[in-house]
């Protein structure tokens, strides 16, 4: 079995190619002039630049969250990062026909078609390449229902009032070190606004691609669902194979007003580094949603298989009464990957409910930590939380850790926490083999069974993709 495990680990990362394209790249390093330059390149209104500079000044006085997360990495030299890189051809385009064919090919190769005709399943895509959005599909179709789906840069220019109103309303610029950095230098991302009572008729999705070496990606996504609106949003990510680590510090803010629902799904497959742990993406991300009005619901589903290091806690602030927050997560570490991920559910509203299902899979020498906070404030009478946190270990060189923080400040609420750790046993694999399945099919079946409660929350196409990805991430992981 050892050889099959090794071939699995050494499997080529299939999205590791580099697109050779002329880029408008600013010199490495960060100072106020760089921020002014980014803002000017994007033609931003003054409020935006002001906000960036405030964030930058705050960031200068903040400390990297090195001490509490269960991850290890050498110090990051923030002056050695390129903060803006865009394909030269990426100007505002009148139609998809004007997109540089090289970019279209890049996305084709990643399995993302930017041609609207090719999408049968009704998914609108915003394609982000390094620091800019290169194309957004189905914009016109969606606009008919008043839905805004565009790149963040475009939103800043076209809908400054909406941006100004909601930007930073869930993740303030001074929230944490990486969020502050993002607020100062964020380049692009997606913006969604679904008006009152509108149910978005298709899945919206953003595909993030990092291409330029030494460039960081700092995208910012803001999704606002007005009263009674519904939207389902998907996010996918890949990057080339490189020997050096690259920083990805994103911020995602979700705002659900009364009765609105936002479903946010992520399949994260950034380059994870090679067998020796060299290279790979540092995925330091702040994601948070606010159920601002009564009866609002936010649901996060994530499948995290890539990145050298993952540090992210998609959270929900349950502000309104009768609000619902959900977090379903599968995090896989193999090779030398490290993940410290989980969620925060902050209960403010009466009878607010939250569900957390976390499945951590550790293989190779990977290190996987679940970190979750459930906080129930005095006002949140009758609040409920259910947490289930399961870890699976494959092999004996990996690690799994659980760090739950529970803080209940009233007596009418109930909080449940269940946790389990299992080892994918030789006996389970042998049982499957005795029934005719080979080792790889056996592992994939056992692991998929373990993750089932999470996968069933993903939209169909994504669920299939996630299952395949899990198979690839774990190939050869049993020794």
């Amino acid at each position, binding site marked *: 079995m050892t050889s099959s495990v090794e071939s699995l680990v050494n499997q080529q990362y299939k999205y590791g190619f580099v697109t050779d394209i002329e880029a408008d790249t600013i010199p490495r390093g960060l100072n106020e002039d760089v921020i002014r330059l980014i803002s000017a390149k994007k033609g931003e209104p003054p409020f935006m630049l002001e906000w960036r500079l405030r964030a930058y000044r705050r960031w200068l006085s903040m400390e990297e969250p090195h001490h509490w997360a269960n991850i290890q990495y050498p110090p990051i030299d923030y002056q050695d990062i390129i903060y803006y890189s865009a394909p030269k051809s990426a100007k505002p385009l009148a139609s998809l026909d004007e997109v540089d064919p090289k970019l279209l090919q890049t996305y084709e190769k990643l399995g993302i078609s930017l041609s609207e005709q090719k999408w049968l399943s009704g998914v609108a895509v915003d394609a982000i390449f390094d620091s800019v959005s290169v194309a957004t599909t189905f914009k016109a179709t969606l606009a008919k229902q008043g839905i805004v789906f565009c790149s963040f840069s475009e939103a800043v220019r076209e809908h400054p009032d909406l941006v100004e109103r909601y930007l930073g309303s869930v993740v303030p610029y001074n929230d944490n070190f990486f969020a502050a950095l993002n607020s100062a230098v964020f380049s692009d991302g997606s913006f969604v606004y679904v008006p009152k009572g509108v149910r978005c008729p298709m899945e919206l999705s953003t595909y993030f691609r990092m291409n330029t070496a030494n460039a960081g990606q700092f995208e910012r996504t803001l999704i606002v669902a007005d009263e009674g609106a519904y939207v389902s949003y998907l996010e996918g990510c890949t990057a080339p194979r490189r020997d050096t680590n690259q920083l990805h510090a994103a911020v995602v803010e979700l705002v659900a007003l009364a009765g609105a629902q936002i479903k946010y799904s992520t399949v994260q497959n950034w380059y994870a580094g090679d067998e020796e742990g060299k290279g790979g993406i540092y995925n330091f991300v702040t994601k948070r949603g606010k159920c601002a009005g009564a009866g609002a619901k936010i649901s996060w589903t994530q499948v995290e298989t890539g990145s050298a290091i993952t540090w992210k806690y998609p959270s929900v602030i349950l502000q309104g009464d009768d609000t619902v927050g959900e977090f379903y997560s599968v995090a896989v570490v193999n090779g030398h990957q490290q993940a410290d991920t989980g969620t925060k559910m902050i209960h403010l509203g009466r009878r607010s409910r939250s569900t957390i299902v976390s499945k951590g899979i550790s293989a190779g020498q990977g290190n996987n930590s679940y970190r979750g906070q459930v906080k129930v404030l005095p006002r949140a009478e009758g609040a409920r939380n259910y947490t289930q946190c399961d870890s699976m270990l494959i092999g004996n060189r990996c690690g799994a850790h659980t760090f739950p923080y529970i803080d209940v400040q009233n007596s009418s609420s109930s909080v449940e926490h269940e946790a389990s750790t299992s080892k994918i046993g030789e006996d389970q694999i042998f*049982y499957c083999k005795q029934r005719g399945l080979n080792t790889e099919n056996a592992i994939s079946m056992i692991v998929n069974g373990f993750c089932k409660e999470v996968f069933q929350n993903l939209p169909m196409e994504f669920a299939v993709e996630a299952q395949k990805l899990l198979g690839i991430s774990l190939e050869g992981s049993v020794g």
Partner: protein
Amino acid sequence: MLEIRNLHARAGETEILKGIDLTVRAGEVHAVMGPNGSGKSTLAQVLAGHPAFEVTEGSVLYDGRDLLDMDPEVRAQAGLFLAFQYPVEIPGVTNAYFLRAALNEIRKARGQEEVDPIEFLELVDQKLKLVDWGPEVMSRQVNAGFSGGEKKRNEILQMAILEPRLAILDETDSGLDIDALRIVAEGVNRLRRPDNATILVTHYQRLLNYIVPDFVHVLYDGQIVKSGGKELALELEAKGYEWLTGEAAPA
């Protein structure tokens, strides 16, 4: 069908099988009996290819092929089935999904078409009757939350669906109440055909009241110390194992 010659096997440094000889022909039912620790279950596991055991000497031919040279899944695909003493749980995977995947691997190996979920459910429908179960068991997770008796019944259901040529039942009777024992035995009996064979590994004679063997072998300290017809089992029941183990003990 199966020819075991001078089979030696060990787990770590401990030698457990110390020269087993056994021939099983199509259509036969063999019972392998013996006290605890005699190597019965090891024999079953070695035949199925469990990686915890290392074969140090001897040979096993299965339909003329070198069984010991085949991976466990290849043995299964060639029609060797082990009903586990302790069936393993696979949470999150339904019986239907698991068994259809297994059946299709076996069918592929035989050059047969795979069955789709609808054909599979039709096929399963008849097999469920053998173990007196309704279709709802197919949407339960493999052995997870099953009682001990249900797990054993599930093994027989799997056997019925996979239609092995050689079935090895490892202590399938242990821990069963009389009703469950009857259901399990009935299932095994109905699956007997002239072209397949069964090895029953058991500690007690009780099972043999329901499944009548053609041959009975007594295993002691890694060797077969006595073979005979079904009457040997009754003799064991009456006298215990001591008269044989005494005989076999080294001078």
